[in-house]
C-alpha cells in the first residue's frame, strides 16, 4: 500500500454501494469520496482525453492566492486590536483575555485567529451546509464554488461583526445569490459580495464604510475613547473645500505607503494592497483570473479620478483634488478588483466585454466614492452593479459577432 489513506478507499467503496439510489446520501458520499481520491469516471463520447484540471483544483488555487491576504489579515486584526488597547490596561475583558495583551507577533496572530476563525467557521458551516443540502435535493455533485466564497466572505467583513449576522448574510448570499439560479456557474451575482451587500444594507450600524473597526467589543471591553477612527475614505470625503485631502489623510496617519502595505484597521482582507497584488500575480500566472479585468478596473479608476482632478477648481469639493492613484490603495478597491470582479461566473466573459466591465467598475468606484455623499466606499456596489450588466455587455459583443455573420451572407 503506497498511501496510508488507501484504507479509507474500502470504506468509501462500501458507502457508495449503500448510497445507491439514495440521492441525499449519494451526493455527500461522493463529495467526500472525490475529496479523498480522484474520481473513477472515464471519458466517454468522442473525446477520449481530458486535462487534469478540475474545479476542485481551480478553486483551491484561488484559495492559495487568497492565503497571503488571509494570513496577513489575521495578524493585522490582532495587531489593530492590541494596539488600540495598548494604553488601557485591563480593557480587554471578553473571552480572549486569557491571551497575552502585549502586541508581540504571536499575540497578534492569536488575537487575530480569535476573531477570524469563528467568522470563517460560521461562514463555511452555513454555506457548505446549504451546498450539501442543495446538491442532495437536486441530485448532483457538490459544487466547490463555495470554498472560495467561504474564504472571501470573512475577508470582506469587519472583525467584530456579530456571528449571527455572518450566518444570516451567508445564507442569503448562497441561496439568493447562487442556488436559486442553479448553483455555481449559473449565478449572475458574486455570492460573497451578495452576502456583504445584504449585511451592509440590513445592518448598516454594524458595517459601513465611514468608521473603522478594531475588534474591540465596546460593551464588554472598557470603552476606549478614540479607538474607532474615521476611515481614509471618510476623511477624504469630509475634507473641507479648499484644503488638501492628501494633507488631511497624512495628518490622520494614512500615507500612500501605509495604505499600500495595509497595517491599518479595516475589513479584514481589504487593507493590504501589496498582498492583493501577490494574489493577483498568482491568479494571473495560473490563468485562473483575468488580468484584463484587473488592469482595466485600475485604468477606470485612474481615468475617472484623473478627469476629476482635471476639472477640479477652487470651489469644487476637496475630494476632487485627491490624486487619482490614491484611489487604488484606498478602501477595498484592490481586494475587490483582484478577487471579486474577476469571479469568472459573474464577470463578463468576452474579451472586449472584460475590458468594458473592468473599466466601468473602476469608473463607478470613483463616482460612488467622490460624487455620491451617501456611501463612502463604492467597490462593492460598483462590482455588484457591473455583475448585473455583465451579461448585457457580453450580449453586445456576441451580437457584433452575429452581425458579422449575417453581413457575410449578403
Amino acid at each position, binding site marked *: 500500500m*503506497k*498511501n496510508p*489513506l*488507501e484504507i479509507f*478507499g474500502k470504506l468509501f467503496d462500501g458507502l457508495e454501494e449503500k448510497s445507491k439510489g439514495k440521492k441525499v446520501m449519494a451526493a455527500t458520499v461522493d463529495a467526500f469520496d*472525490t*475529496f*479523498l*481520491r*480522484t*474520481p*473513477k*469516471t*472515464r*471519458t466517454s*463520447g*468522442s*473525446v*477520449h*482525453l*481530458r*486535462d*487534469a*484540471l*478540475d*474545479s*476542485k*483544483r*481551480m478553486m*483551491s488555487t484561488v484559495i492559495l492566492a487568497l492565503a497571503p491576504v488571509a494570513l496577513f489579515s489575521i495578524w493585522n486584526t490582532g495587531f489593530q486590536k492590541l494596539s488600540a488597547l495598548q494604553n488601557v490596561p485591563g480593557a480587554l475583558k471578553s473571552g480572549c483575555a486569557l491571551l497575552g495583551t502585549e502586541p508581540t507577533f504571536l499575540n497578534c496572530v492569536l488575537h487575530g485567529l480569535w476573531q477570524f476563525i469563528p467568522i470563517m467557521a460560521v461562514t463555511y458551516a452555513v454555506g457548505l451546509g446549504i451546498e450539501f443540502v442543495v446538491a442532495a435535493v437536486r441530485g448532483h*455533485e457538490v*459544487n*466547490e*464554488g463555495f470554498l472560495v466564497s467561504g474564504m472571501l466572505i470573512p475577508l470582506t467583513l469587519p472583525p467584530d461583526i456579530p456571528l449571527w449576522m455572518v450566518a444570516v448574510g451567508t445564507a442569503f448570499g448562497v441561496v439568493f445569490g447562487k442556488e436559486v439560479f*442553479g*448553483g*455555481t*456557474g*449559473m449565478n449572475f451575482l458574486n455570492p460573497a459580495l451578495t452576502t456583504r451587500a445584504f449585511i451592509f444594507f440590513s445592518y448598516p450600524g454594524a458595517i459601513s464604510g465611514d468608521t473603522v473597526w478594531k475588534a474591540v467589543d465596546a460593551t464588554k471591553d472598557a470603552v476606549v475613547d478614540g479607538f474607532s477612527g474615521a476611515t481614509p475614505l471618510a476623511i477624504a470625503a469630509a475634507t473641507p473645500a479648499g484644503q488638501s485631502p492628501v494633507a488631511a489623510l497624512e495628518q490622520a496617519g494614512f500615507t500612500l505607503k501605509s495604505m499600500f502595505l495595509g497595517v491599518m484597521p479595516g475589513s479584514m482582507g481589504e487593507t493590504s494592497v501589496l498582498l492583493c497584488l501577490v494574489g493577483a500575480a498568482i491568479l494571473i*500566472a*495560473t*490563468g*485562473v483570473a*483575468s488580468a484584463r479585468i484587473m488592469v482595466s478596473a485600475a485604468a477606470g479608476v485612474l481615468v475617472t479620478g484623473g478627469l476629476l482632478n482635471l476639472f477640479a477648481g477652487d470651489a469644487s469639493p476637496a475630494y476632487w483634488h485627491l490624486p487619482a492613484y490614491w484611489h487604488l490603495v484606498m478602501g477595498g478597491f484592490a481586494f475587490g478588483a483582484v478577487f471579486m470582479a474577476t469571479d*469568472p*461566473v459573474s*464577470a463578463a*466573459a*468576452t*474579451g472586449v466585454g472584460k475590458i468594458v466591465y473592468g473599466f466601468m467598475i473602476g469608473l463607478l468606484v470613483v463616482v460612488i466614492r467622490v460624487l455620491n455623499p451617501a456611501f463612502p466606499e463604492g467597490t462593492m456596489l460598483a462590482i455588484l452593479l457591473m455583475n448585473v450588466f455583465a451579461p448585457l455587455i*457580453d450580449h453586445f*459583443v*456576441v451580437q457584433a*459577432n*452575429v452581425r*458579422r*455573420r*449575417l453581413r*457575410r*451572407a449578403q
Partner: protein
Amino acid sequence: MGAFQVKKGFDVPLEGEAPRTLRDLPASPFAAFNTDEFAFTKWRLLVQEGDKVQVGTPLASAKHDENILVVSPVAGSVHQIVRGDRRKLLSVVLKNDGSGDAVDFGAWDMAKIGSAGRDALVAHIQKGGLWPLLKQRPFGKLADPAKAPKALFVNGMETAPLGADQEFLLADRADEFSLGLQALLEIVPTVHLCVRQGCTLGALSQAQGVNIHTFAGPHPAGLPGTHINMISPINKGETVWTITAYQVSLIGEFLKTGKVPERQIVAIAGSAAKERGYFRATRGAQISNLVGSALPENVRAIAGTPLFGTAKGSDECIGMRDASLCLIPESTERHYLMSDEHWAGAGFRSFSTWRLFASALCCRAKKWALDTALHGGRRAIIQQDVYERFSPLDVPLTTLVKAIPSGDIERLEQLGLYELEPEDVALCTFACPSKVDVAEEIRKGLALLEKEA
C-alpha cells in the same frame, strides 16, 4: 493562396506517434461497413446474410438518394447484419475469403475524366462506393451531388495528436492523388487545398487547378473546420464539401485501376500500441487484425485520434474514413490525497494545458502517455472563456454551448452552429475544467438544427 497562422489552439503532446514506416498487414478475416460513420444518413440494405460479395458489390444505398452506394471492400460473403433499436441498421459484417475477386468498373484516364462530363463522373464514383468519402457541411452529411457546393476543401495536413500524416500517406501516391483531384475539379470548380506551411511534397504543393493555402500553428490548424472558417466561412444556405488528400487518392486509385481499392493505409499509434507505424490494411478491417491480437485488457482502441475518434472493441471494424487507430491506456487507478496526481497534489505527473500544476514548470516538453481518466466531476461552466481560448474559429462558443439546451433554432443559427462539427471543438472538451463535453453538446445542437431544417 493564403498563408494562415493559427494562434489559438494546443498540441497535446502524446507519446506513441507512429514511426514513418509502411508495412503490409495480412488481410483481415472480417471487414464491416458501419453506419455510425455517416451522420444523418439512413440506409437501405441491398444484401442479405449469406450473400456472396465481390470487392465492389453494393451493400447499401442511402435512403435519400439511391445512387449513393456503399460497396464491399472485400470478396467473400455477408457474415452478419447488425441492427439496433427499431431495426436500425448498424453494420454489415463481411467475411473475407481472401480471393480478392473484384468487380471491374473500367479504368478512366485523364482524358476520359475531362470529357465524360460531371454527371457521368459522379455516377462512376458513386458506383465505386467512394462517394461517401465526401463530407458536406453544415452537419457533416453525405455530399449531395444535386446541389453544387460553394467549394471543396481538400485537407492535405493533420495536426491532431497521433493523427496520420497526410504527406506520408501520399508519398507514393502522387498519380492517384492528381487523378482524383482532377476528377473532383470536374465536379466542383472551386477547390481549396490546405497544406502544412513548409510542405515540400510535390503532389500537394504543386497541385494544378486548385487554390493552395498553407496553415501553421497548433491544433486545430489542420482541421477542415478551421480551414473553412478562415478561408471562406459557411453562410446560411451554403454548403461546402470536405475530403482528405489521402481519400482523394483512393478515388484516384479507383479511377486508375477500375477496381475499388481493397486496401487503405492506417496509422497505428498510441502509447499502448505494441507495434506502431503505417500499415496497408484491408479497408474496414477488424481491430484485432490491425492490432495483431485481441485488445489487451485496459487498453482503449480508438478509430481516429484520442482527441476525436470512436472507441472500438476487438471484433469491431475501423471506419472507411478513418486514417488512424490509436491505442491508449484506460484509467484504472484512483489517486489519493497526498499523492502527486491527486487534485491537491503538486502535479508533476498531471498533464494540463493550465499553469496550475508543477508539470507546467518542468515537463511541458516531454511526451505524455495520457489515459482515459476524466479527472473531475461534471460541473456547470465556471470559466466562461475557456472555449474561446482554445478555438481559432470566429464563433462565440461559450454563448453557443449555453444556448443549445434552449432549442432556439434561430438563435443557434445566428451564433454560427452550422459552421461547426463536433470535431472542431474537441480541444475545448479536452481543456474544460468543468468537464463539459463541448463536442457532444455541438453534436446535440446540430441534430436539433438538422431536424428542423
